[in-house]
């Protein structure tokens, strides 16, 4: 019987840990001990709360008080004021940016108001290292329930829920399970794809860090449904915390008889092994992932055969993404009909997004499908940083595209985003403002795909390289109008001929920005100007009449490009200038401008 009458939850996600949340936990425990209250007050580390912008987050229950940007030095005051005297520490509460009022409870924060947590239901609520807390939240009951159904019934339930793969493809999960179930073999495998590779995406990592048992349970359900006894989690080695918590979860589940032989007294045998990846983007593609797990080069092969027919060691294999699995237990606990009641006609349930870029509330959010981009960016995300103008939002990572002002009221779902020239992808959402240069954004993504291309097929290996070269030419002001035609033509050839999803989608950022921001490309080529002021090669630093001749800039210039006598206006030699910006940073009179 737990005697605790107060719980202090401290965010233990990777983001908050790097802002010292481990030290906060230690300090809180120390001061609670000093106040002689360690029998009443429990301090625990949970998974990600999602509000990374304001981390580290500390939540006190039952008072339902949400403290933001807490430091280890604040621990003493939190204990002495809030815990001992029952007074909220105002200065650590979240302050509403519009009303400037303090908000103490997360339910009343704009960031949380429109969210709906299904896959993240336990993140920031339970101690991920404690299996009993997961069980207390009805954990493993869904597995028990599934075991009382036939395999086909379990698959039908998943089909009925309308759940689609959350890794990017959006393939119906139930159907995928059915294919693997119907392919008979002496051995089958369940694989969890935790090779999250999109730049800026951290949904899967957060789920594994905050609620690893939900994935373990779902894999066991899947194992039962398709008739597999072995599960594998393919996770990148650069996620050490997620790996540690997953290892602990698997070990505990074995001890409790929830993995292994005769699970919950039934005939079900299922166990999970972790396979480490080296962090290659292409290994998120399921055939490449399987080859990598087999110890071969992480290169894709053509489909068919699909993994459901011939996957890991040529046996029927079902591969699902982390977030997809995290939804499975809820479908059994609350029913497929409940799940199917959320979302749009063809996209059911919720989606987790990693909000990043020029937005006020950077963080991890989960919203029902069908919510508009406007709600996500302005209501949840709190709008654009520093009052700048919204320009575009990039979804779907390096395979996706850009959406603009006119798309803001489109309900987000798999099909709508594709119709608008982007895609859902795994859930990265990067917001850009007026200072972002779109050809440079396309170049950034091409740099990524060019480097991550495995090199097996020519269109991707050579094609992405050539695309990148042309983009470099354009952003340096050396492009020609013919280059735009070449970009388009080459993009289409790569899309049509590349072997796997990486190559087939790599040109998307170019095609999408060419479509929407054609003028910016033209400005780079014809006017030799970067409208957003990002492409260094097209910028000139100039000294205006505000210059009082203090010589500070001339002294800091690494190439001695600035000349001028003391107390007289200085001049920059554009030939010598390397556009490092050191002079502009140094000038105290705002006399140096960039145009």
């Amino acid at each position, binding site marked *: 019987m737990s005697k605790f009458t107060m719980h202090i939850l401290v965010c233990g996600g990777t983001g908050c840990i790097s802002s010292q949340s481990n030290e906060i936990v230690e300090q809180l425990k120390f001061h609670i001990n000093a106040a002689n209250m360690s029998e009443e007050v429990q301090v625990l580390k949970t998974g990600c709360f999602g509000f990374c912008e304001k981390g580290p987050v500390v939540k006190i229950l039952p008072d339902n008080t949400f403290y933001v940007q807490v430091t280890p030095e604040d621990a003493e005051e939190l204990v002495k004021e809030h815990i001992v005297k029952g007074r909220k520490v105002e200065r650590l509460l979240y302050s509403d940016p519009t009303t400037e009022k303090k908000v103490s409870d997360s339910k009343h924060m704009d960031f949380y108001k429109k969210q709906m947590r299904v896959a993240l239901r336990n993140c920031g609520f339970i101690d991920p290292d404690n299996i009993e807390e997961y069980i*207390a939240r009805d*954990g493993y009951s869904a597995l028990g329930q599934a075991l009382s159904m036939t395999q086909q019934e379990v698959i039908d339930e998943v089909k009925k829920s309308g759940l689609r793969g959350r890794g990017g493809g959006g393939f119906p999960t139930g159907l995928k399970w059915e294919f693997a179930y119907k392919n008979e073999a002496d051995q089958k495998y369940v694989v969890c794809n935790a090779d999250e590779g999109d730049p800026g995406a951290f949904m899967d990592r957060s789920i594994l860090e905050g609620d690893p048992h939900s994935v373990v349970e779902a894999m066991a359900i899947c194992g039962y449904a398709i008739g597999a006894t072995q599960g594998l989690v393919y996770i990148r080695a650069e996620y050490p915390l997620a790996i540690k918590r997953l290892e602990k979860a698997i070990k505990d589940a074995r001890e409790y008889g929830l993995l292994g032989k005769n699970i919950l007294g039934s005939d079900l045998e299922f166990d999970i092994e972790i396979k480490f990846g080296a962090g290659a983007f292409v290994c998120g593609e399921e055939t490449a992932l399987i080859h990598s797990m087999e110890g071969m080069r992480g290169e894709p092969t053509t489909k068919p055969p699909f993994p459901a027919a011939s996957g890991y060691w040529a046996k029927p294999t079902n591969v699902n993404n982390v977030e997809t699995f995290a939804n499975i237990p809820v479908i059994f606990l609350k029913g497929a009909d409940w799940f199917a009641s959320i979302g749009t006609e063809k996209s059911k349930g919720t989606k987790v997004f990693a909000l990043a870029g020029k937005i006020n509330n950077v963080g991890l959010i989960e919203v029902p499908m069908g919510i508009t981009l406007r709600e996500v960016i302005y209501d949840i995300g709190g709008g654009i940083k520093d009052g700048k103008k919204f320009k575009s939002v990039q979804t779907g990572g390096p395979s996706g595209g850009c959406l603009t002002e006119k798309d803001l009221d489109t309900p987000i779902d798999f099909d709508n985003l594709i119709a608008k020239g982007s895609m859902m992808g795994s859930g990265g959402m990067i917001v850009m403002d007026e200072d972002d240069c779109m050809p440079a954004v396309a170049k950034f993504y091409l740099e990524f795909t060019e480097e991550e291309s495995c090199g097996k097929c020519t269109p991707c290996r050579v094609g992405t390289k050539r695309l990148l070269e042309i983009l470099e030419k354009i952003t340096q002001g050396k492009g020609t109008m013919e280059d735009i035609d070449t970009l388009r033509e080459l993009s289409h050839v790569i899309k049509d001929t590349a072997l796997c999803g990486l190559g087939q989608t790599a040109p998307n950022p170019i095609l999408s920005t060419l479509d929407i921001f054609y003028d910016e490309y033209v400005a780079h080529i014809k006017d030799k100007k970067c409208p957003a002021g990002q492409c260094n090669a097209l910028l000139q630093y100039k000294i205006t009449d505000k210059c009082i001749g203090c010589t500070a800039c001339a002294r800091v210039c690494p190439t001695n490009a600035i000349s001028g006598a003391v107390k007289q206006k200085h001049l920059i030699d554009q030939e010598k200038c390397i556009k490092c910006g050191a002079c502009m940073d140094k000038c105290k009179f705002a006399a140096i401008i960039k145009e």
Partner: protein
Amino acid sequence: MPKIMSLDELKSLRDNVKNKVDLREKGENVDEMVVIRVAMATCGIASGARDTMNFFAELVRENELNNVVITQSGCMGYCYAEPTVEVTLPGKEPVVYGHVNKEKAKEILEKHIKSGEMVDGIIPVAHKSLDE
């Protein structure tokens, strides 16, 4: 840990460990809960506040009151009347009782919490503090 051998065993384990997260689940909706706050500073504990709190927990469990949260505060300042207990019904102002022993606790639960009827022993709010 012996292995869980059936869904029923899993359910009974769940019921046993439910209290690990119960306080948090209720705390998320604390506005709709009855909150019993026991003053647990040194003076309170010396006068038996810990027993009072444990007794409240027992009563709540026996009576299966799912809308009650028991928590603690530090010193409320009424050291002469310890153990002190603050009871807040949803949407109402908090009420503080002094000298709460087991007998009083039972009375508070039966009358105040179950039917909203206040009982003797209330410490009147004599003044508001300067910062209010």
